[in-house]
């Protein structure tokens, strides 16, 4: 009985969670009190503009930097003090990976593979071949795209339960990008791998993510499922003469030349739009994910 309960407790532990995370570089705030938690089996796309703090958030979540305040946990353990068991269950690919440049691709995979109990050597070899990467070429001499692919192979071959990718498609050509997204979807669908990836490319996010989190100027502005974004958020347009009635809370706010207002608004807990949406002349338009991202980020 207790074993069953313990198993259930383990299964509901968030693979990755942060609370009130604050960090700054050289006096300027990069993360200002971020709360985020990943559900097991989810694919979370972290989106935000350059310098929004995505990479810092990911690094803090994995214990790769010591935040000023707040806490981060991986599989329930403090991120800065992970056990070997937890480390074996996760894989991370940084933006523009540069590790172990003095080894060949084959040597790097051989070296890293020795540390992972569930290392899939045949997957590593086959994928190297499929992605046409010369196994005996020095990592330092590979192109950035090839380098990123080798690191993705390294991450996937360890068969992780949690896969964290920082801008994984940044250096990939469209074919490799499509293949990576397929692999992520496959892992999440078949093996229940939890995935967190950051990206600028909204179409990638729509293709594979089940959840989306939008980070803007160090704050997490929204975190919901991808389908929910279309239902939950909309663009409220209010004519100039009644712009005084605009809701005080909105994700973005823009006044046009004719005096009218455009705001990105959110439904309340009862599913209703703000009251201003019911005024005569006002209207709420549905928004795609990219429109939503651009409106908020601008």
């Amino acid at each position: 009985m207790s074993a069953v309960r313990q198993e259930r407790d383990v299964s509901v532990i968030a693979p990755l969670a942060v609370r009130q995370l604050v960090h700054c570089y050289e006096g300027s705030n990069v993360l200002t009190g971020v709360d985020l938690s990943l559900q097991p089996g989810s694919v979370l796309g972290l989106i935000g503009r350059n310098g929004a703090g995505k990479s810092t958030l990911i690094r803090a979540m994995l214990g790769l930097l010591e935040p000023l305040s707040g806490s981060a946990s991986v599989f329930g353990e403090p991120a800065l003090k992970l056990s070997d068991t937890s480390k074996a269950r996760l894989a991370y690919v940084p933006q523009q990976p540069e590790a172990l440049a003095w080894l060949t691709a084959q040597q790097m995979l051989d070296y890293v593979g020795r540390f992972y109990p569930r290392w899939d050597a045949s997957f590593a070899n086959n994928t190297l071949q499929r992605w046409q990467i010369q196994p005996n070429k020095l990592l330092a001499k590979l192109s950035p795209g090839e380098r990123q692919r080798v690191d993705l192979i390294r991450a996937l071959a360890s068969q992780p339960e949690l896969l964290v990718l920082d801008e994984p498609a940044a250096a990939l050509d469209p074919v490799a990008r499509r293949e990576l997204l397929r692999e992520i979807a496959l892992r999440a669908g078949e093996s229940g791998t939890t995935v967190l990836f950051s990206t600028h490319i909204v179409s990638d996010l729509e293709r594979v993510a089940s959840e989306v989190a939008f980070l803007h100027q160090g704050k997490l502005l929204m975190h919901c499922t991808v389908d929910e974004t279309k239902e939950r958020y909309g663009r409220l347009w209010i004519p100039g003469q009644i712009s005084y009635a605009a809701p005080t809370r909105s994700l973005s706010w823009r006044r046009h030349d004719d005096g009218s207002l455009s705001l990105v608004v959110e439904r309340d807990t009862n599913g209703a739009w703000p009251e201003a949406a019911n005024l005569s002349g006002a209207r709420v338009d549905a928004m795609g994910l990219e429109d939503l991202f651009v409106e908020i980020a601008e």
Partner: protein
Amino acid sequence: MSAQDILSAPWRANRPSTAWQGLVLLVLAVWGATAAGIFMDHSDCWAVCTFVAGFFLALLWAFVMSNMVLLAIDARQLRVPALERGLMSVMFFYGVACVALSTALLGFFFGHFAAIAILIALFCVGGLLFALLPRFVVTPLFLLPAALNAIPFHVALPGPLSPDFVHWWTPVALGLCVLTLWCWHRLVHAADPYAMGWGRPLVMLFRGGGQTGGWNPWTGYLDRAADSVERLRDSPDWIRGRADLGECGPGQSVTSLRMALGGVFMPQTVLSVLRRIALVLVPFLCYVALMELGHDRRHPVQTWQDLWHDGALLTLVLVGAFGGMTLAMVSLTQLWQRWAKVNGELSLLALLPGLGRNVKSNLVSATLRPTLRLQILLLAFLLALAFYLHLSIQTTMFVLLGQLGAAGFAVAFSLLIIGGRLPGRWSIAGVAVFGCILICISLFVPTLSDPAAITLGPFSLRAALLAGWLVLSLILSRLARRGWLGLQQRPHPFLPTSQA
């Protein structure tokens, strides 16, 4: 280009720190020549003054003026032909100005206008060529002094005091000018000048992604030092070390960490180690062979023993003074590069399972063991030389102290880097300069004279040196303790380190 543009071009083509260094070299050229003129009273002192001035001018052209080629490359890549052509005019103007002004000044006091002009031109063009020639040409040039020493039996090259000097060396200077033009053209017109591998000249070595501008004694050097990835990309395959993965794995934490640190820390195959030893030994043996060829025949009275004694003494002083510190600097540079880069080995190691519970102590062992092993080998070599030279116990002790000091630097700063407690840049610079001066004096003075006989006020130099070593050891111990405590306080050792 206007006259003002031509005059200000070197200032604009260089970072302010480099331009200032250029001015310092100019001042040193003038002061050096003046000092030599004042303190020497024989008739040939014009040659010494010209050599002193020429030496600093050669440095100026090698490390400051040569940077103009980088601007010319940028101008060509950005399709600004007027700037590209204008820079040629700038180089021509400054070349002529340098030779003409130096000749006028030195010639005014000593005469010998033609010989001085040729000598200064040779120094300036030589300095520029040193920076522009491919590395595979420049590296063997270090054997040139020994080779020139061997040459007189075959070709009698006239020295500056010879009446034939101008006739012989004018065509050489013109030839070097043509060669410089060819090097310049080759670099500027290359499709990708920064991807020439082993053919990339020295002037481009320090122009990497790490250039952050500004100057500071520690990160300034480290930022300019070629990133290990960049260096690997440029190096031919035969020169790089081959990794030996044999003993890496979860049970072998120290070896695995060394593999992940790469560079001087990386375990290598036996063949790779032998190849690297050969890379050091072959030029050394060439040097010895050339010395023997030149020395023995010119001075038939001197025996092999004299030659070996002189060579051994020179090796002891140079290797003792610079070998240990260079080793320490190489390992610290690599360590700093690993701990400063967030997308490199740190994240991989931080999340790699199976490195064991004692990862901090294993890391200390992985970072210090290879460096200290090399330092011990160097020390054994120097002690063997000291024994061969029959040096006194006191001199041998200073040789020993020099190596211990270099090893102390390696230990203290390695701990500071991995412990995330690097002090401010000026503190580091102060300790480094103090240590270097102390090591150099400790090596140079006792091998040339008796430090007990030299007095500094009421104290002998020996007492001052011992006091200096005591102070340095206290500072290094304190720094090492600070690094060690920092490491113990870190939740894990693979967090990036930034400077205070």
